[in-house]
């Protein structure tokens, strides 16, 4: 017992180190969605309203993507404790990723009571997998969603194994919380609750059966009540527009057949199968550079062997029936992700990490029972160190050097420079208009001032799927540069070297104020002070010259 406790605490310690070490600088920078979550959380903590002035919204409008609320509300606690900074906004993700180790251990122990090793191995794998470590280091909702999903499943198991109503009610509450954590869990949580209950409730004694069904129904009613606000808003045009933009059902191009239903079925088949493809799981990372680690997929390549052995063992062995039914999680997890256009979305398919990790653990456990102790220690230690080496290479060496631009690196240094030098008026060139949130976050702009400056029509809060491309608050203006007027105003213009070249700066008499460099030593952001007097004088001179000519 002591040995078990020591082992699980050691795995937890390892998970904490991998998630909290250099949390503020890896990933480099702060992605816009992270900044949006952080600032909205700060606004909620300060005023009880989001950045648009909506009091305690069910979904956070943000960039028209309607972020799920749980992470934002819970982040108010670390932000109150540590202030608004990169650490406080990523803290909740790292913490839930670390605590998930305990949940996984107890859950797997419950699902496979005869396979004690599998519980430890599952916990160890989830502590070191690239998928879990990487997502635990981002201030995004996925890790929190998975934590609550697994916790709900653990309570669900306890509820199914006993007759106490309180376990069922707790299960309902946890599934409800899970549904508010992330978009994927919004679909998976109620589905898991219903399917897992129906599959496991059927075969019990008659008297117990009635009581269990009664508890299940009460729990289902509680879950429906708690999901009420979400269900009501599911019919809003904002929610539907978002879903339409992500799915491929209405795509008209590139379908192989003229028969639309068949083409969509084929497309869905391809997308769903992609989530079980060894190529995507063990070699080729998510094609989106912001959602993956360089040269490392979601699992380590060597794990394909224990995965196949685990699959073989799972089918062959006389596993407990509950354990066999766990395959449902394996099949259900990628369903929401398979309905979207992204080829292999590591964010949306994140719940899949659990059943695959358990299968790999089962495979490793099978291998352990067939080889000698000496070989086992050498192989085990080698695989462990090799995996950590690959993780270190991708996460701490390649990611900050190759993907810093994908993580909006540079804004922290930029806003710091602006605040230190106390520029009166600042124009940040941004075609997309999303960097306003970075300026709000790093300047810790008072939410009350923002709300008084920004007047938003809240009657259509849940109907709008866009955001203001131009923002003005305090000294900041975030929009594209309008050359015909901006060069004649006394201000600091901030832009990338692509947006404002050296020749343009020279032409308009800009004075270089500062450079922000990337980790590769190249300039990523320039700060130029305008010289309207010189510009006007030059224009006058040219006019006179042309008149004389």
């Amino acid at each position, binding site marked *: 017992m002591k040995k078990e406790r020591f082992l699980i605490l050691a795995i937890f310690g390892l998970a904490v180190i991998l998630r909290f070490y250099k949390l503020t600088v890896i990933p480099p920078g702060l992605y816009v969605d992270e900044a949006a979550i952080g600032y909205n959380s700060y606004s909620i903590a300060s005023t009880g309203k989001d950045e648009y002035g909506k009091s305690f919204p069910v979904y956070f409008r943000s960039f028209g993507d309607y972020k799920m609320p749980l992470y934002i509300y819970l982040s108010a606690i670390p932000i109150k404790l540590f202030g608004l900074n990169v650490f406080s906004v990523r803290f909740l993700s790292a913490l839930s990723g670390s605590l998930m180790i305990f949940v996984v251990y107890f859950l797997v122990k419950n699902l496979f009571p005869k396979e004690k090793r599998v519980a430890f191995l599952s916990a160890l794998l989830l502590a070191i997998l690239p998928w879990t470590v990487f997502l635990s280091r981002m201030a995004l909702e996925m890790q929190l969603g998975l934590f609550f999903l697994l916790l709900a499943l653990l309570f669900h198991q306890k509820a199914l194994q006993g007759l106490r109503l309180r376990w069922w009610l707790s299960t309902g509450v946890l599934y409800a919380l899970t549904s508010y954590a992330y978009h994927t869990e919004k679909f998976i949580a109620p589905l898991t609750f219903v399917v897992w209950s129906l599959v496991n409730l059927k075969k019990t004694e008659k008297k117990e059966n009635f009581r269990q069904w009664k508890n299940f129904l009460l729990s289902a009613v509680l879950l429906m009540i708690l999901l009420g606000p979400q269900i009501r808003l599911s019919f809003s045009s904002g929610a539907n527009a978002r879903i339409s933009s992500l799915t491929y059902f209405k795509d008209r191009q590139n379908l192989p057949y003229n028969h639309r239903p068949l083409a969509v079925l084929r497309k869905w088949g391809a997308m769903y199968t992609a989530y079980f*493809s060894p*190529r995507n799981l063990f*070699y080729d990372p998510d094609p989106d550079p912001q959602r993956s680690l360089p040269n490392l997929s979601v699992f380590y390549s060597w794990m394909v062997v224990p995965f196949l052995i685990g699959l073989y063992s799972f089918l*062959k062995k006389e596993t407990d029936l509950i354990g066999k039914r766990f395959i449902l999680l394996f099949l259900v997890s990628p369903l929401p992700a398979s309905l979207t256009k992204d080829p292999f979305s590591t964010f949306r398919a994140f719940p899949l990490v659990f059943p695959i990790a358990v299968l790999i653990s089962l495979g490793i456990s099978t291998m352990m029972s067939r080889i000698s102790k000496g070989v086992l220690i050498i192989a085990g230690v080698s695989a462990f160190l090799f995996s950590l080496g690959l993780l270190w290479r991708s996460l701490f060496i390649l990611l900050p050097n190759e993907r810093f631009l994908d993580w909006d690196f540079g804004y922290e240094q930029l806003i710091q420079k602006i605040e230190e030098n106390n520029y009166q008026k600042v124009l940040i060139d941004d075609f997309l208009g999303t960097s306003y949130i970075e300026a709000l976050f790093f300047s810790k702009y008072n939410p009350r001032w923002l709300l008084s400056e920004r007047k938003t029509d809240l009657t259509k809060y849940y109907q709008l799927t866009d955001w203001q491309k131009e923002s003005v608050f305090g000294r900041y203006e975030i929009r594209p540069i309008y050359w015909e007027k901006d060069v004649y105003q006394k201000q600091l213009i901030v832009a990338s070297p692509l947006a404002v070249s050296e020749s343009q700066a020279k032409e308009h008499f800009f004075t270089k104020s500062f450079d922000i460099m990337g980790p590769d030593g190249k300039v990523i952001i320039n700060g130029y002070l305008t010289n309207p007097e010189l510009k006007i004088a030059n224009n006058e001179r040219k006019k006179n010259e042309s008149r004389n000519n």
Partner: protein
Amino acid sequence: MLDFGRCNLKHLLPRRIRFLIFILLLLFSIIANPLFWNFRQEIATGFGFDTIFTITSEGIYQLNTRRSYYPNQLLGKIFENKLTFYLDKYRKNFFQGLDLNYYFFANHPRERTGMTEKEIFFWFWLPVFLVGFLSSLRKSFLITNLIFLGSLSIVSFFVKIDNFILLLSPFWAVNFYVGLKQIFME
């Protein structure tokens, strides 16, 4: 008269020694054959096909750039070298060969740039294959799957594994057969 029925070493030498002599004779007969030395050259050049053991100037540039990221030169050489480069290419081919989407969906949704993808099997047969594969794991066809993995491991040394897909056909044939039998006959 000589009794050819007793013309064996079974009674003279233990089993392990006999086996060792057999292996040595086999190796000698291969090495002593002049054809072997031509074959060796063929292996080294991949029988005229491109192998993974080539590195372009872009590859060298990438290796050198990545080496510069490491705090220590030695670590850079350990993690970024030709061996890791070849290993990455090998892994790319190996996992390409394991990808169901490659066989059933013309590599959709992760088509390779610059390549014309083809659907090797009609996607409708995927459930039949899956039933066959999972059933074969439970029955005695496991050896077929192991042979497939072994063949794929060899084929992955070549850059374009598409040229060698036919070699893996017994695996597909067995699993389709088992699947069809399971669904329609049992």
